[in-house]
């Protein structure tokens, strides 16, 4: 099997597992934040934090054993636009509250028969590509140039920062990773309700491993002297647009990791729904709600493209590399979600 095929199938398997686990456990940052901030139930948010901790440890483990070099990922980019990362993250976070779930959650729900999510998925995909390569791209590039900064480190991550303080390469790799991960784990496991909820424990654990699985598939299985594949993991903005594009232009395109992940998530969720006999077609109850979901999807697509990632792309894949720009994007996502849930731009609950 060629390395491209291995990456395509690897992506499908990762997507499949994400879809099954997402469907069975309800893994979702939006509902995690909503439950923690408005209902006082912090378990789902801790599941997300557990996924982050597991992803950080597993990804750095992959690098320590020489399987991948996280520095090749798009997240550890020395030059980035702080303005677009913050603005994009905020837009994404707000859109996520408007549409009641991010791109990955919408795919999982789509597999279980929720047609509202189809609208969200299409809006994210189209708006994301409008911003990356379409009508909004010139504006994005113009704004990026105005606010571009370059981090004066050879590696724009906490690892690079630790190395610049004189730590050896092994220590620089492990100390920040273990510090951040143990902080997250302490936050998770200090909560009794979370400790005794297998659903949340499994959701966080599996999704965290899948993030590292993405690095392994694209970075190790995809490695080829003549035909290198770009290092990638789970993310759901560009891949949604890529999937729409692939459906329309597949004779002239080669299949990419992100596209097979998207297909896998829908299939996995569908399989899990059918196996548990919970498949149910659902649509919009009112046009107002539909308009809100459309707007949320478009805002998520634009914001996710500006910040180079969504709640999963920056929030888990980006965080697993401990990239410095990622912290800005994640702060933006949390700010946007706060504005929509508790802040001055609060949205009525659905």
């Amino acid at each position, binding site marked *: 099997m060629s390395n491209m095929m291995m990456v395509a199938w690897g992506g499908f398997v990762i997507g499949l597992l994400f879809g099954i686990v997402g469907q069975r456990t309800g893994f979702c940052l939006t509902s995690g934040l909503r439950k923690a901030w408005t209902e006082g139930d912090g378990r789902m948010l801790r599941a997300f934090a557990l996924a982050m901790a597991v992803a950080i440890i597993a990804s750095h483990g992959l690098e320590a054993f020489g399987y991948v070099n996280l520095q090749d990922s*798009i997240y550890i*980019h*020395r*030059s*980035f*636009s702080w303005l677009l990362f913050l603005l994009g993250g905020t837009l994404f976070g707000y859109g996520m509250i408007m549409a009641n779930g991010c791109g990955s959650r919408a795919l999982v729900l789509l597999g279980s028969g929720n047609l509202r999510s189809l609208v969200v998925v299409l809006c994210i995909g189209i708006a994301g590509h409008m911003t*990356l*390569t*379409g009508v909004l*791209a*010139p504006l994005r*590039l113009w704004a*990026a140039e105005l606010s*571009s900064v*370059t981090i004066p480190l050879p590696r724009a991550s906490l690892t690079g920062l630790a190395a610049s303080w004189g730590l050896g390469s092994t220590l620089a790799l492990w100390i920040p990773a273990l510090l951040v991960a143990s902080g997250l784990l302490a936050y998770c496991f200090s909560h009794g309700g979370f400790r005794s909820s297998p659903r949340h424990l499994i959701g966080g654990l599996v999704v965290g491993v899948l993030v590292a699985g993405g690095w392994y598939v694209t970075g190790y299985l995809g490695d080829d*002297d*003549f035909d290198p594949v770009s290092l990638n993991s789970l993310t759901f903005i*560009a891949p949604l647009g890529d999937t729409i*594009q692939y459906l329309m*232009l597949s*004779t*002239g*395109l*080669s299949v990419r990791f992100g596209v097979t992940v998207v297909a896998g998530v829908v299939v996995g969720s569908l399989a899990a729904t059918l196996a548990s006999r919970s498949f149910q077609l659902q649509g919009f109850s009112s046009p107002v709600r539909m308009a809100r979901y459309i707007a949320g999807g478009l805002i998520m697509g634009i914001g996710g493209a500006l910040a*180079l990632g969504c709640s999963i792309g920056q929030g888990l894949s980006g965080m697993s590399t401990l990239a410095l720009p990622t912290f800005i994007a994640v702060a933006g996502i949390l700010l946007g979600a706060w504005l929509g849930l508790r802040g001055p731009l609060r949205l009525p609950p659905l």
Partner: protein
Amino acid sequence: MSRTRSLVTTSWSRRDFLRISGAGAVTLGMMMVSPSLLARSRPWARHDAIMELLDGAEPDTSGVTLELPSVSEDGSNISLTVRVDSAQENGEYVKSIHLFAPDNPNPEIAVFHLTPLSGQAQIATRIRLNESQRVFAVAKLSDGSFRIGSQDARVTVSGCLTDDATYDSSGLMQARVRTPRSLRPGEVGEVLTIINHPMETGFREDADGNTIPRRIIHSFVAELDGETVLRADFHPSLAANPYLRFHVKPNGSGGTLALEWTDDEGETTREEAELSVS
């Protein structure tokens, strides 16, 4: 007033109507025969570099296949495969394949000179495209005839920000080669090569606004026991880290395949690989 206007619009005679619909029918007819018209419209005719190569000859528009992705987000590295449907034997073979990107600052991409030892007129490489355009491949056959093929390629702005205006010169001119372990007699083998090189076009500026001088690999030769298998001239429209996939059909019992690259500063790299036929 309104009355006269309505008179004017309704006063078309039956003859007018017939004349107009007749013109419509002609237009429709032209649209239906358009494939042959398009072929005769010779889309390459307005590109000087191609016309110069053809030198008055009329190329056959079939038999050359160009494969390019329909949409690319990164114009600096686009996979391209060109294939000429022709025998590659002593009597009749494809002598050369010329690739053109007419809307690039440098329309020539590369020229591949093939021989009967090439076995198969099929080359894969990676190219640069400045903008969306039609890419052309012209094949010159041993009997002096030409064939031409083309493919539209769309290039969008990059999905991601890129930096690294300078390149790491430590691995410069380091090449990797993959050849088949062994071949059966008469079998065509596939050779993959890639060499670290920035293929600096001479059009780029560094952070201080100074033009980075041109430095590209301009020639590549593959020889089997001293006999040419493939010779290639590269131009700045070839992507950085030149990649080639080509074919070799050894006579008899194989031999040593020697590959040599030369860049603008006269630096060369030579790689050798044994090809055994059994």
